[in-house]
Structure formats: C-alpha cells, structure tokens
C-alpha cells in the first residue's frame, strides 16, 4: 500500500513515479544480490584478514588457496561428485516416473483414478520432518544408511507435485494428435514417447531443473542418513564446517559459494524454464 501512495500523489506526471519505482527496484535488487557478492569477496580472504579488517576491504592477498584447501584437505571433490550424482538421479528419476504416472492420470481410464489422484495430492501436505523418523528406520533396516541410494530412493518416485504438474500439461495436448497416433497403430508407450514427450519438453525441463535443485539443496535427510565422507553431500559438508572451537569463516564461506555458484549458472542458462514454472503450475 505504501508503494502505491507516491504514485497517486505525483503531480509531476509519470516521470516522478517512474523514478520512485526505479529507486525501490534498485534497492530491492541490491538486497537480492549483495549477499552473493559479499560472500564471493569473503571467500577469497585469509582468516586473519576477515577478523582484522572491515568486511568491505578487498582481499589481500587473494587467498585462492581457500578453494584449493577445500579440495585437497576437505575432500570437496568427493562431496561435489556425490551431490551431482544425487541431484541428477533424483531429477532424471522424477521426470521419468512422474511423467509415466501423469500420463496415466491424464490419458487413461481405470478404476480408482480420482481416488488415487486425491491421495497423491494429499501427500503434499505431509511435512518432510514428519516422515523422517520412520524413513530412518526403513533405510536402516534395509542396510542402506550412509549410501547414496539412501539419498535418492526416497524421492525418486514420490513427487506428487511432479505428477500434478505434468498431468496438467498433458491434459492440454490435443486429443486429435493422440488419436492420430493410435490410428497409426501406436502402443500406449509409443504415444507417450513419440507424441506426448516431444510436445512436453518445456514442462519436462522445468520439472527436471526443479528436481535437480531440490536434490542439490536437500539437507535434513542427508544430515540424518549419512555420516561418512563417502556419502556426504555439499550441504552437510558446509554445515560441518561450523565449529564450536574456532570457525574457519573463510573456508565456510568458500564452501558455501561452491554450493551456490552452480545454481546461479544453472539459473542463468535455464531462466526461461525456471520462470515458467509459475505459469505451468496453473496460474495465468
């Protein structure tokens, strides 16, 4: 509301109101990016510089070795690999399995369809933490604690959001195209792979990227389910840097940058798909 007032009172016409708009947007924009920039700066400082000088001074010398240390001493190469494996597997698995389920919901008739769909959707209200304890027990008894599959399997085919998102998209595909394929003798699998999938590239990309980001950022479950370097992912590694006996802030922040940067790059490349997730989820 406060934002609309200056506009109403402006007598100088659109110029002033645009000026105010720009000002607000520039300030807001700065708040959004400044943490990234500050962190990038800090990640290149030596620890004693971080303590002895104001935060905005330039690093001297540039401590590139912070990143080298992450790899050589702290095994970040391994954590990165683990994170990539987990995130990629979750993304591919979710895209695959959710599109199959979405196809069934969108284009097939079977008993219990509406019931199943409602059950799927209602799982969206279950908070993650609620299932964590039983999940831990299930994974422990399966002997999978501390392995990467333990970080992948719980998510790979249980995304109701993915089913919903894709079902909605598949519903919009003209029936004619599907009928035509069927008349040509296409099986249901062929309809999915030759007609629906090619037409649904945007939604598959969008959902795939979102799943990837989810896998990349996931923290609570990996924190509980893994305890060794062999299955440690970046988020857990970062949190393990905080220490009650002297935190190495420079490494902690360098590690954080290391986890954020790939996502920034991903975002800039696939911006179009990511922004369209809003439209895809039904708001227009």
């Amino acid at each position: 509301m406060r934002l609309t007032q200056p506009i109403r009172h402006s007598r100088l016409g659109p110029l002033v109101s645009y000026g105010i708009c720009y000002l607000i947007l520039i300030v807001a924009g700065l708040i959004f990016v400044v943490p990234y920039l500050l962190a990038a700066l800090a990640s290149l400082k030596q620890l004693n510089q971080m303590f002895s000088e104001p935060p905005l001074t330039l690093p001297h010398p540039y401590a590139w070795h912070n990143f080298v240390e992450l790899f050589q001493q702290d095994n970040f190469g391994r954590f990165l690999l683990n994170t990539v494996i987990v995130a990629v597997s979750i993304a591919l698995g979710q895209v695959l399995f959710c599109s199959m389920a979405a196809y069934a919901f969108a284009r097939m008739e079977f008993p219990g369809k509406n019931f199943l769909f409602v059950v799927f959707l209602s799982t969206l209200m279950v908070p993650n933490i609620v299932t964590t304890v039983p999940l831990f027990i299930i994974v422990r008894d399966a002997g999978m604690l501390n392995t990467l599959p333990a970080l992948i399997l719980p998510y790979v085919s249980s995304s109701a959001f993915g089913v919903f998102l894709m079902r909605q998209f598949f519903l919009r595909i003209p029936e004619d195209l599907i009928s035509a394929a069927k008349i040509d003798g296409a099986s249901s699998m062929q309809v999915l792979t030759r007609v629906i999938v090619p037409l649904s590239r945007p939604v598959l990309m969008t959902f795939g990227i979102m799943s990837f980001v989810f896998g990349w950022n996931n923290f609570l479950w990996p924190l509980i389910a893994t305890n060794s370097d062999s299955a440690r992912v970046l988020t857990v590694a970062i949190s393990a840097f905080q220490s009650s006996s002297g935190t190495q802030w420079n490494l902690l922040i360098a590690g954080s940058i290391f986890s954020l940067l790939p996502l920034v790059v991903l975002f800039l490349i696939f911006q179009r798909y990511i922004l369209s997730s809003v439209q895809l989820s039904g708001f227009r």
Partner: protein
Amino acid sequence: MSLPTAISAQPGTQASGSGRNWVRNAAGRTPRRSSSNHRTRWGVAYLYLLPCILGTLIFVLIPVIAVIVLSFFHWNLLGSPTYAGLNNYETLFRSSQFWQSLRVTVEYVVMTVVPLVILSLGLALLLNRKFAGASVFRTIAVLPWLATPVAIGVIWEWIFNPQTGVINSALAHIGIQGPAWLSSFAFALPTVAFVYVWQYLGYNMLFFLAGLQGIPTHIQEAAKLDGASRIQSFFRITLPLLSPTMLFVIVIDMISSFQTFDTVYVMTNGGPGAATNLINFSIYQNAFTYLNIGYASALSVVLFVIILIITGVQFLFFRNRLTYDLG
C-alpha cells in the same frame, strides 16, 4: 523452507486447493475421451503408475502411519519399543518447552508470511508496469529462490555477525551500535525470518505478477471511467480479482514456512535459549540427538495436525471470497 517444500509442497497445495477443480475437470472430460480410449486396459495404467504408487506408499504413506503408531511408544531406536499409551502426548502438552516451541513457530510463520505477501504483491504491482530493466530485476529477484538454504544461511550468519559482519560495521559508521542479531532473544527469530523472506520474495512475486497479468485491463479502465482512484481500484477490483493467487501464495508460504529447518540449523541451532526452537527443529533434536523417538513422533503428529487444520481453515475462509474468480 528447504526446497523440498518449494517443490513438493508448495505448488502442491495449490494442487490440492484446485484439486477438486481438476478432478471435476477430469470427470467432465471423461465421457468424451472414454470412447477413444476404449481399448486402454486399466492394467496398463497401473503399470505406468506403479513406480509412483510404490514410492509414495513406502516413503510417504507408510511413514505417516508409522509415525502415528510410534507416538504411542517409548523407544530410543536401539532396544525394542515399549508401549506408552498417551504418555508422550501427556509429557508434550505439559512441557513448557513444547508451548514455547509452538509459540515461536507461530510467531515465525507470521513474521515470514505477512511480509512475504505484502512485499511480493508490492513488487509485483511495481513490475506490472512496462519499463526497461523489468526483466533484469525479475531475474535478480528470483535468484535467491534457488539458493542452497544451508549455504545462504551461513552467508547471512556472517553478514549478521555482531562484530565482524557487514551490517554492524556499516551501522558503526553512522554511530549506531548494531544488536547481536542472531544471539539475542529479541532479534534472533526476526533475523531468521528475514532470511526466509529474502529467499522467497522474488518467487512469490512471480505468482502475483502472473495473477495481475491475468486481470483483463478493460475492467480497470471501466473503473477509471467511473471515477475510481488508483487506491479504490486497487482495493475494489485488483485485490478481489487476485484472491485465488492470494490463497495459493498464503497457503504455500505457510506450509513451507512451518517446515523451516536448514537456516535455523546453521544460523542459530534453535538458540539463543529456545528463541528459535521451531517445532520442526525440536522434532529433529528429540529424534536424532536425544533418541526420544516416541516423543519426537508425538510432536510430528501434532505438527501434521496443525498444518492440516490451518490449510483447511484457509480454504473455508477463502471459499466465500473466490466468487470474483473469472475462471
């Protein structure tokens, strides 16, 4: 708060919100399609659904039932569980820690959702006008949405560091001694809430932007001709027409705000004292640091019920107001 909610829970609630519509839509279409799909055997459909049904059953539905069962037992994950009846719930409702934790959680949800909705609507209104640089701003604003919460929590923790952090250094320049943001009772919770708002503001804005663009311009022009001021037209026309978006945004924000864990874990670890001991964090602590599995399960059930009630109430509340939906 972690992206799981952003992805699985967030738009999902909308799903269940308009779920009824979708189901109705599907039902509406059924007669038309069933003729062409006549030969599709339903066994095939279940085959396609199998992975998702199994995944949901094993990793969501069974755990939900298990957590309810476990809440009636005492167990430390090691020996065998002993039946405890309602003891865990009794302990819980008598514990001052639980009520403190509940209060903090509710405060946190209010501190995140209210600013999120107001600010993101404000930004969307600004951005809804045509001008250069709007798309650049949009990109920048959405960037934090993808940020790893653990990593961004660490960075903000450093920025808010009372002694070496950027904010207090800047405040010192203008002669103000900044507070201990994350280690004082007064500021810890608002500071963690701020980081949440920072992260999801841009993404929320996208929904309002989409909602605004869905409002036909002729309605506003007509109002203008009738002599309505900008303010009047905002409150009488824009806002009511945005109510579906509003419902959606509030519900997803509340549900995911209730689930904040990552930033609390790295920024405050539930402290100082119990100032940021959100229920979510409390469950984690009781389950995996103290191995009070039964108690943690009872807490989980309570959290789940709270979320169900809140979601339900919001639908009832907004149902009457959705009449403006131009559908």
